[in-house]
């Protein structure tokens, strides 16, 4: 039994002081329900993905679920740090795949700006293993990726300029996405002149602290036929992996093993052996610019160490060998943790349906990929979608 996405929605990302968590989730759910053309009665299971802690609502699944009209249909609350949204999609997918339900909704939502930046850093820095990292050394999330950047630069000669080029590309895309946190372009000079947050990562190497939500409605093949949905996007590959909590227990800092393993699992299931030839679009986890460069390599878009050249040569831009993060990526569209993985599904579904407007990629294979990482490779999720 195949599982397809029949409806997607995404709120405006940004500093959303105007809405509560449930209100911003509602924006995404309302759009997804309209998009799918289903009624609340059709939805049998609600999965709420939210990383939490930065929002005043500490047990948020129930209020979000009720506000969105699904009281009694779940909710299952899932958390996988920055990959929470993908974990929510997986729970919806696997419940349908197992034959337990025919229609499920994955709601990813996050309010991150209800606390100040120092508090937000202290929550993010607790990703990993608190006692041995944050407690002793004050690790921060930018710091985790900055440590990987230092190893990548040293080993492969990756430069700050190459990292800044990721920011330039993703801001250029976000400038044309009305739902993006930053709808403005940045120049290479501006990016390189910004101050360091965690050396060697500068402010423009980092995704912003964002609020937002996204929703995806999934259905069984049988239900899709019954409903007469004419544009389902099928989930043809699913891969997941993870890595050690403690960074000091990693073999290597030049990439993320969770990406390699999750992608190979998804590729095998979807029959992908040459991603650049078979995929039309990829959304990758660019919480920091170095993360996008490592993702090119770990997903097999280029060889290890060549990610810096991949961005420099324009291979991940429109017209390149695979357009990456066409809606602006986490870097410029924003990164509300629980929403991010579901918003990636939103982007790939819009692209594969040909509904991406001025950001539309050329479709040849009608296949796309989402790559969502939690923490610093602490969770890894890859999905392959096809028409």
């Amino acid at each position: 039994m195949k599982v397809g996405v029949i409806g997607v929605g995404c709120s405006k990302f940004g500093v959303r002081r105007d809405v509560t968590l449930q209100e911003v989730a509602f924006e995404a759910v309302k759009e997804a329900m309209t998009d799918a053309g289903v009624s609340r009665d059709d939805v049998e299971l609600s999965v709420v993905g939210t990383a939490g802690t930065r929002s005043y609502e500490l047990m948020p699944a129930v209020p979000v679920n009720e506000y969105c009209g699904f009281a009694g249909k779940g909710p299952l609350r899932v958390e996988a740090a920055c990959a929470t949204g993908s974990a929510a999609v997986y729970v919806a997918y696997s419940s349908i795949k197992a034959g337990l339900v025919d229609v499920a909704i994955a709601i990813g939502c996050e309010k991150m700006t209800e606390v100040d930046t120092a508090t937000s850093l202290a929550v993010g820095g607790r990703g990993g293993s608190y006692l041995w990292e944050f407690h002793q050394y004050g690790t921060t999330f930018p710091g985790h990726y900055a440590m990987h950047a230092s190893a990548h630069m040293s080993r492969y000669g990756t430069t700050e300029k190459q990292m800044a080029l990721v920011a330039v590309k993703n801001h250029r895309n976000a400038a044309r996405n009305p739902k993006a946190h930053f709808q403005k372009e940045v120049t290479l000079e501006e990016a390189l002149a910004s101050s360091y947050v965690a050396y060697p990562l500068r402010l423009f190497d980092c995704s912003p602290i964002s609020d937002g939500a996204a929703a995806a409605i999934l259905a069984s093949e049988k239900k899709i036929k019954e409903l007469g949905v004419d544009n389902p996007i099928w989930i043809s590959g699913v891969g997941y992996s993870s890595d050690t909590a403690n960074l000091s227990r990693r073999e290597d800092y030049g990439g993320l093993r969770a990406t390699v393993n999750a992608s190979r699992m998804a590729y095998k299931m979807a029959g992908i052996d040459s991603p650049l030839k078979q995929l039309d679009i990829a959304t990758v986890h660019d919480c920091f610019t170095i993360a996008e460069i490592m993702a090119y390599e770990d997903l097999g878009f280029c060889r290890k160490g060549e990610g810096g050249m991949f961005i420099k040569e324009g291979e991940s831009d429109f017209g390149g060998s695979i357009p990456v993060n066409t809606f602006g990526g986490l870097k410029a569209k924003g990164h509300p943790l629980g929403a991010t993985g579901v918003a990636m599904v939103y982007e790939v579904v819009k692209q594969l349906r040909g509904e991406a407007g001025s950001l539309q990629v050329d479709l040849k294979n009608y296949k796309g990929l989402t790559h969502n990482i939690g923490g610093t490779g602490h969770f890894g999720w890859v999905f392959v979608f096809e028409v």
Partner: protein
Amino acid sequence: MESRPFVLKHMLPISRVERYWKGLEEGKIYGTRCQSCGASFYPPQADCSFCYSGDMDWVEIDGEGVVECFTRIQRPPQGFEFASGGYVIVVAAFGSFKVMGWFKGEGLPEVGMKVKAETGKDELGVWKVYLTPL
């Protein structure tokens, strides 16, 4: 409108790895090694995640370390206001153990730099490892 204040402060149960924390006060850094399968753990742990044995040896980590990665935190998180000028975090390999520590040296370290490990406590009295260039 603001929420009611909410303070979260946890008690840390460290009794099973107390040797580690005592060691830091004595200038020693300990990892653990499984007596049954030989797996090494740093940070130390009392149980083996690979063979499920609970028989561990405490192993002192010393000698020469090699820097594998580092960062300089310019924007400290809540709880590190005392280090508002920033601090450098390093992971260095000491044989089969990799150790995180604060860098105690001029400027920034480099990947591949040789370091030695010392212990000490910060302004808030938290014991930790410091890595100094050799």
